[in-house]
């Protein structure tokens, strides 16, 4: 019989493999902070270009998450509650941004919504230009985050199921009220988790942004700029600075969602 607290071969293999994987994350992160220069970081904290890029990144990612939640939650609800012809196709479409190379995603967005793209002339007429613009950044961030939000929220709605909503309706609640008072409170953790993952994904995007909206510069673009112009030290310092801000927000939001 296995002694309590004693590690057997099964646990030993699991722990070893897990540590190898965690090492792949922790080692580059540690290396980044070791490469970064604290004095340079201090200077960057008062650099208008850096502060502007951080502001653009955070603002665009927040707007993108709001759009994602407003449109992705209804889509996730439909996919979790109904069966219809072509549902598999819709689910596959939702996952396209996940499998598409980032530069290809940028080209797709540009081909569809760019001023010379399929819908560009129409968008230009209403004053919406996506090339090198804030709306372009929001569009890219939203595009790449769709699967993370929709798939996570869909799982949440599937776990809650429809039977409680049905009971609520027989007790006199309209569809809206049943959704608001029963399904939403039970699925909100998945909605928050999906929004958080979507936000993080949008914030980390750079490939599609290089194609669609180089300006106004987001932090990711600025890091690439620093790498090519000033070298690794500058790029690593800005990366470390940015990663601290993003990780702090991410940890705080995760804490809120878990609690």
């Amino acid at each position, binding site marked *: 019989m296995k002694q309590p607290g004693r590690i057997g071969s099964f646990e030993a293999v699991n722990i070893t493999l897990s540590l190898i994987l965690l090492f792949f994350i922790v080692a580059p992160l540690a290396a980044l902070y070791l490469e970064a220069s604290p004095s340079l970081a201090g200077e960057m904290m008062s650099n208008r270009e850096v502060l502007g890029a951080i502001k653009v990144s955070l603002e665009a990612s927040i707007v993108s998450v709001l759009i994602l939640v407003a449109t992705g939650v209804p889509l996730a609800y439909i996919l979790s509650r109904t069966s219809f012809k072509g549902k598999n196709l819709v689910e596959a479409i939702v996952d396209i941004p996940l499998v598409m190379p980032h530069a290809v995603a940028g080209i797709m967005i540009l081909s569809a919504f760019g001023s010379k793209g399929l819908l560009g002339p129409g968008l230009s007429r209403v004053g919406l230009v996506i090339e090198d613009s804030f709306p372009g950044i929001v569009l890219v961030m939203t595009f790449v985050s769709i699967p993370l939000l929709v798939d996570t929220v869909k799982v949440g709605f599937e776990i809650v199921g429809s039977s409680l909503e*049905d009971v609520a*309706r*027989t*007790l006199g609640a*309209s569809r809206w009220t049943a959704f608001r*008072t029963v399904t939403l409170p039970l699925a909100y953790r998945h909605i928050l988790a999906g929004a958080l993952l979507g936000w993080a994904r949008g914030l980390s995007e750079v490939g599609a942004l290089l194609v669609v909206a180089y300006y106004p510069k987001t932090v990711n673009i600025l890091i690439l700029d620093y790498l090519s112009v000033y070298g690794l030290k500058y790029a690593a310092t800005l990366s470390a600075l940015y990663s601290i801000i993003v990780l702090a927000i991410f940890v705080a939001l995760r804490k809120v969602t878990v609690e």
Partner: protein
Amino acid sequence: MTLLLMENIEVTAGDFTLRIPRLEVARGEYLIVLGASGVGKTLLLNVIAGLAKPSKGTIMIDGRDSTRLPPEKRGIALVPQDYGLFPHMSVIENISYGLVVRGIPRREAYREAERIAELLGITSVINRKPVSLSGGEKQRVALARALVVKPKLVLLDEPLSSLDPGLRLKGLELLARIKSETHITVIHVTHDILDALYLADKIAYIDKGKLEGVYKPADFLHSPSSKPYLDILNLSRNLLGKIR
């Protein structure tokens, strides 16, 4: 006086079709829907509640064509097999839910919920969450939540099936008490002949997706449909006799 009248109903769920040529339930009647598992008993309740749409036929509730009426407009309360208690709400929030969504002020709704909780003997658990309740308590909370809105009709889906024998007997007594004290109209789905004989004014028998007939309990026992149920009752009696 007729409360529910279903005629020529056909409803499909996946590959399964349920047919109800005619089902009439009088006001104040306790109708037991009896049938084996998978014959469409739950689907019948869902059609009556408005949660499943029939492809054919009409449903009249209280003299009004309700075939296309949404569930919240039917005045019918459903107690599902797993009781369907809202896990994020306390017992009192669960019981008062139907009143609150009707726009009744929360304080008034809570007062009414407390009154019905007392009637069903669950006052001591009203501040608890459903996860901490026993099977019998969950059943009472679900019944209280259904009864508090004073529905025209209560639908009970196998309300005693998940209870152990002791609680099951108490559950039967509770339902009998509700029947005699409130005279509310009930459609109670079960596969257990004991529930039917203990509670039913009438028994509707469903087999292979079709309502075969509606009987008074004594008449049902003389019908060919009752054979498997009588066999199991006789077997129980013989076994008891042998063991004793």
